[in-house]
């Protein structure tokens, strides 16, 4: 178990309980169960207290937790017959973006998402979920395919942002993102997006310009990372707590602002503490959202999606 910095006191208690149990296993005479159970209760109470009211900065940390389920985990658990489709037909296949045909509850769909990787090797392979233009162009191609064959599109968003690299710029990172957003707005099929971790700026918008956008309870979605914002506006990257606060990047604030449609509850202690439970909740939310859109005609889907974004921003937080 990886503990976040603010979870340190919790780590101590859970560590003690585990130690006691390990000792008891080695020495059958010892009766520690009462003591260990008391520590368990204490840990659970602490977990409740810690997660009851997470600050925006702590939510950023939870959203980036290395044990949090990633795109690949959702695809494997929620979809069948997943058939990855690779490449942008231009330059490369970007491993930061997964995509392909799959069945959701037997219904054929197109699923596309950012994948961050889960150990050093796969993180490097996946470029930490930071897509290059090829990734967005692959997504454009797959959305187009889905549109032509009338398959709903489900996107899973989890990226620190689009990759800031030399080649990425040379090959038109901005153009690729702009066209991906444009493609999202053009397709005559249901487009559903779930922000499962980090929704990092334009790199997220390129997938999340959807009919329905849901966010996991402790995921974040922002125009800039709190660190980036702090270094620009506070001239001090260490002011990320203040920046995270000011940016209103939590699912709760974004729901109030009308930017997202739904919040998916996470298990106590965050998605990483009960991965299968989290994945199942996301599955149920996708099912509901698909159902909401299933009877809409292509023109209506396009029109409603556009109108939704045109209307955005009329609600402030003040009220």
């Amino acid at each position: 178990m990886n503990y976040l910095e603010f979870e340190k006191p919790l780590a101590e208690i859970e560590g003690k309980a585990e130690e006691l149990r390990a000792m008891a296993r080695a020495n059958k005479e010892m009766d520690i169960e009462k003591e260990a159970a008391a520590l368990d209760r204490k840990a659970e109470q602490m977990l409740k207290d810690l997660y009851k009211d997470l600050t925006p900065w702590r939510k950023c940390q939870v959203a980036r937790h290395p044990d949090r389920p990633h795109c690949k985990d959702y695809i494997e658990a929620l979809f069948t017959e997943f058939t990855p489709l690779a490449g942008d037909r231009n330059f490369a296949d970007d491993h930061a973006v997964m995509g392909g045909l799959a069945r959701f509850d037997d219904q054929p769909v197109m699923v596309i998402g950012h994948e961050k990787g889960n150990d050093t090797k796969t993180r490097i392979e996946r470029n930490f979920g930071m897509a290059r233009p090829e990734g967005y162009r692959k997504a454009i191609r797959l959305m187009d395919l889905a549109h032509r064959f009338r398959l709903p599109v489900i996107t899973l968003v989890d990226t620190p942002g689009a990759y800031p690299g030399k080649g990425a710029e040379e090959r038109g990172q901005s153009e690729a993102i702009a066209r991906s957003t444009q493609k999202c707005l053009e397709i005559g099929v249901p487009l559903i997006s779930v922000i499962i971790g980090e929704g990092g700026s334009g790199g997220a918008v390129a997938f999340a310009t959807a009919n329905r956008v849901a966010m996991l309870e402790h995921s974040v979605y922002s125009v800039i990372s709190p660190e980036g914002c702090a270094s620009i506006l506070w001239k001090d990257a260490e002011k990320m707590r203040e920046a995270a606060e000011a940016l209103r990047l939590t699912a709760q604030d974004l729901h109030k602002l009308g930017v997202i449609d739904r919040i998916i509850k996470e298990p106590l202690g965050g998605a990483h503490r009960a991965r299968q439970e989290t994945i199942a909740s996301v599955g149920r939310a996708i099912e509901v959202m698909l159902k909401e859109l299933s009877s809409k005609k292509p023109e209506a889907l396009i029109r409603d999606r556009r109108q939704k974004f045109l209307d955005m921003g009329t609600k402030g937080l003040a009220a």
Partner: protein
Amino acid sequence: MNWITNYVRPKINSLFSRRDVPENLWTKCPECGTMLFHRELADNLNVCTNCDHHMAITPRARFTALFDGGIFTEVKVPEPLADPLQFRDQKKYPDRMKAAQKATGEKEAMLVAEGEIARTPIVCAAQDFSFMGGSMGMYVGNAIVAAAERAVALKRPLVLFSAAGGARMQEGILSLMQMPRTTVAVQMLKEAGLPYIVVLTHPTTGGVTASYAMLGDVQIAEPNALICFAGPRVIEQTIREKLPEGFQRAEYLLDHGMLDRVTHRKALRDELVAILRMLTNQPPAITADLPAPEPQETPEETTPEAEAPAESAPAQAQAEDAKA
């Protein structure tokens, strides 16, 4: 230049915004160091007469130089919610806004106008880098949507001059949502079969480049303009190596196939006219120095109000005079 532009120049040369006059009669070219007299610089559209360095130009000054006779009508932009997030960094957002308004004499970072260039009716939008770095917030989004709607209503092309550091952080996610919003605006033009020409000026970066500024039917940039998604410093920190000379500059993008053209500011007007008229299947514009039509008054004695066609009353074009 053709006679149309010379003929009805407004009597006060509004190429100077009030912030440049009268305190700074001389401007030092940041590129070559030449001292340039303000009048000379303005007549040259803020391009250094010595080294051709393109300095920033305000939307108002650009429109005055662009539209026939310097006459244009502002298109009204719906007011967005002020400070929707109640954002506060070291300063409060409303205080930053007030400071920007005071420094620029403008309400926000984008100006939208309708008018004619070489008798070619267009709608035009220009971003103001001097207003909070031209940043794209809800107002800029509203401006682009309003520009597209007006262009569709009048069946005219839209020409957009971009200049921005990116999205306006003080509007958080709502600034980010301007990426899809402005993309919808571009789609309105596309569906109406109207040309959308983007002129990228220095600098155009971040979420602006990654939305409406890269979706033009024709993409033109001013020389040496920085155009990118991630800025050079961010990239250097990420990849830990020095970037090549000219990286992310207009000419570099042209070489990499990301732009149609890089065009000198003084040649831009004629080029826009040519492109727009071909795309809309109109005969070539008259570019020869024709005699001005009779009767004629000298520009000095002419008020633009008297000269303007009735339907494009230039009340707004005169706002600058009133302020000056």
